[in-house]
């Protein structure tokens, strides 16, 4: 009788599991768009004025205004009140602000900007920030510099806004990438918005996979200049280039948060394995031990963990291990091809590339919630994601226009912008930390 009861109850349990919708017990769900985060702060940014003593140069005024506008629009912290609304109210007068008007078009924050351009081509940009409701001046800054640095001046102002509202300043952060714009695959750096590109390697060989140190002073990359994929380190402030590897293919380098240790893939033992190397002592340590491919190490911002790709299960999947190579756990289970893991700055999410048929898309795995979000969706290849220092944006490369170009998309799959146009541009890496 008892045995029969057990059999019946087992049967019932089995039946219940069978009729449960799959989502309830499946570990991961794909293609969910989440709209989370804080509500954005409504900001009014009326046109800037030139001071009495300034020489008249509308293009400089416009450049500062538009750079600041674009930064704030990009931020996901501030929401700009559309310019058309400003025409409903009295014209902005910095010496006599009618706050009621600005409140009527739903502005919480009002920014006023004055520009003075001297004959010696120096610019002083003074901007003041007001809270509309309380009609109070919150803070103000003066930024000065040569005319050629007007974009930097505007980015600095936008960064001050971010800091004042408790956010990380990201507008002076840079992106390193590989471009063929001058005919050969070389390493470049540029502003986060794709402007002011600067080439840093000059050779006739293939240069690949650049990566910023956390202190933003060094870039590791792989170059074939010795007719072998070797690891090189470029120091931005001294202009020096150092060869770091000796034998085998050495690539996919990344840095520890202290910028004193690197982690990279090497085939020096005959198979792609992950190694770490102390930049102080030069001591190397092997972190993975198996006969399949282990590659793409990405150090978490806390320094505690390293995400990587391994083929140990038969197909390339994403794994996480402790920085010493222990405690390996598998992160991706569905799908047959994942690579390019990238930690978000807060360590709660991993961006990676997933291949379905011949297409690549970028996904974000929220480790805390165990949810996967798909960031890109088109019939092309979207590769090499890298996070902005504040974790709100992801830069990646895509061949959606036929040629590979760099794009930025927000963490929730919105606000796609294209930041390169010339030649082919790939393998972007955003600076990890800003000061």
């Amino acid at each position: 009788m008892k045995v029969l009861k057990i059999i019946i109850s087992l049967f019932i349990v089995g039946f219940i599991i069978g009729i449960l919708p799959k989502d309830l017990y499946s570990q991961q769900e794909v293609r969910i768009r989440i709209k989370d985060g804080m509500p954005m702060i409504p900001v009014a940014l009326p046109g800037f004025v030139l001071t009495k003593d300034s020489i008249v140069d509308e293009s400089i005024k416009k450049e500062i205004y538009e750079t600041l506008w674009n930064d704030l629009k990009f931020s996901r912290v501030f929401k700009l009140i559309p310019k058309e609304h400003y025409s409903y109210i009295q014209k902005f007068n910095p010496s006599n602000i009618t706050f009621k008007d600005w409140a009527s078009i739903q502005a919480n924050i009002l920014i006023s900007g004055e520009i003075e351009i001297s004959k010696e081509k120096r610019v002083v940009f003074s901007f003041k920030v007001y809270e509309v409701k309380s009609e109070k001046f919150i803070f103000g800054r003066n930024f000065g510099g040569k005319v050629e640095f007007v974009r930097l001046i505007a980015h600095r102002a936008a960064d001050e806004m971010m800091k004042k509202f408790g956010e990380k300043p990201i507008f002076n952060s840079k992106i390193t990438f590989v471009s063929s714009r001058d005919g050969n695959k070389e390493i470049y750096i540029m502003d986060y918005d794709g402007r002011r590109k600067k080439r840093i390697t000059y050779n006739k060989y293939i240069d690949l996979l650049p990566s910023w140190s956390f202190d933003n002073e060094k870039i590791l990359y792989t170059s074939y200049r010795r007719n072998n994929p070797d690891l090189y380190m470029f120091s931005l402030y001294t202009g020096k280039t150092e060869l770091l590897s000796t034998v085998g293919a050495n690539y996919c380098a990344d840095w520890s948060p202290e910028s004193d240790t690197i982690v990279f893939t090497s085939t020096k033992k005959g198979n792609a394995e992950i190694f770490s190397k102390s930049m102080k002592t030069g001591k190397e340590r092997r972190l993975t031990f198996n006969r399949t491919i282990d590659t793409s190490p990405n150090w978490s911002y806390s320094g505690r963990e390293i995400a990587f790709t391994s083929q140990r299960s038969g197909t390339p999947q994403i794994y996480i291990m402790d920085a010493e190579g222990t405690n390996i756990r598998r992160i991706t289970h569905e799908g047959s091809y994942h690579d390019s893991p990238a930690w978000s700055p807060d360590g709660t999410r991993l961006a990676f590339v997933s291949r379905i048929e011949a297409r690549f898309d970028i996904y974000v795995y929220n480790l805390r919630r165990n949810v996967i979000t798909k960031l890109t969706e088109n019939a092309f290849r979207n590769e090499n994601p890298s996070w902005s220092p504040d974790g709100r944006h992801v830069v990646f490369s895509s061949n959606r226009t036929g040629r590979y170009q760099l794009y930025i998309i927000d963490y929730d799959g919105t606000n796609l912008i294209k930041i390169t146009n010339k030649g082919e541009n790939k393998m972007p890496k955003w600076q990890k930390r800003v000061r």
Partner: protein
Amino acid sequence: MKKRLFVILISFMLIVFFSTCKKKEVKTEPVKKPVVEKVEEITPKVEKPVLTEEEIFQKRSLEEANKVGYLKMIHFDFDKYYIKDDMKPILHANAEWLLKHPVVEILAEGHCDERGTIEYNIALGEKRASAAKNYLISLGVPEARLKIISYGKSKPLVRGVDEETYYQNRRSEFTITKK
């Protein structure tokens, strides 16, 4: 009178003498330059040399030798790096040739199609190159003569988006580096 006649006679004779003298000078024939009519070259007849394949190979520069393609490339399956059965005869032929040319050193290049990530493809290309290398070693080619390099997907052989293109690009090529 007689004296006058004598003078005339003398002068006449002189004229005659000089005129004959002059005539004689004109008559002297110029020295003929010796003209050799036909010279038979007596260079020794050499039979046109028939170079052996080996000698032709030795004559060529590395670049030319690589263009000729003494060593044939092999292709791989999608995402795979094992040597396919239909590629084995090619490696046998390559090994045979390498054993005939014991000083030749080669570089086995590993390449991938574009349907892989950059990072993973460098590793995959390396696996392909080393699979080819190990196969050649198993056929008796000394390891010291074989080096490998992976280019991942950065050096495609052909451009395109069809299966045939991808097949062409998933390959291991063999470059002669020393001979």
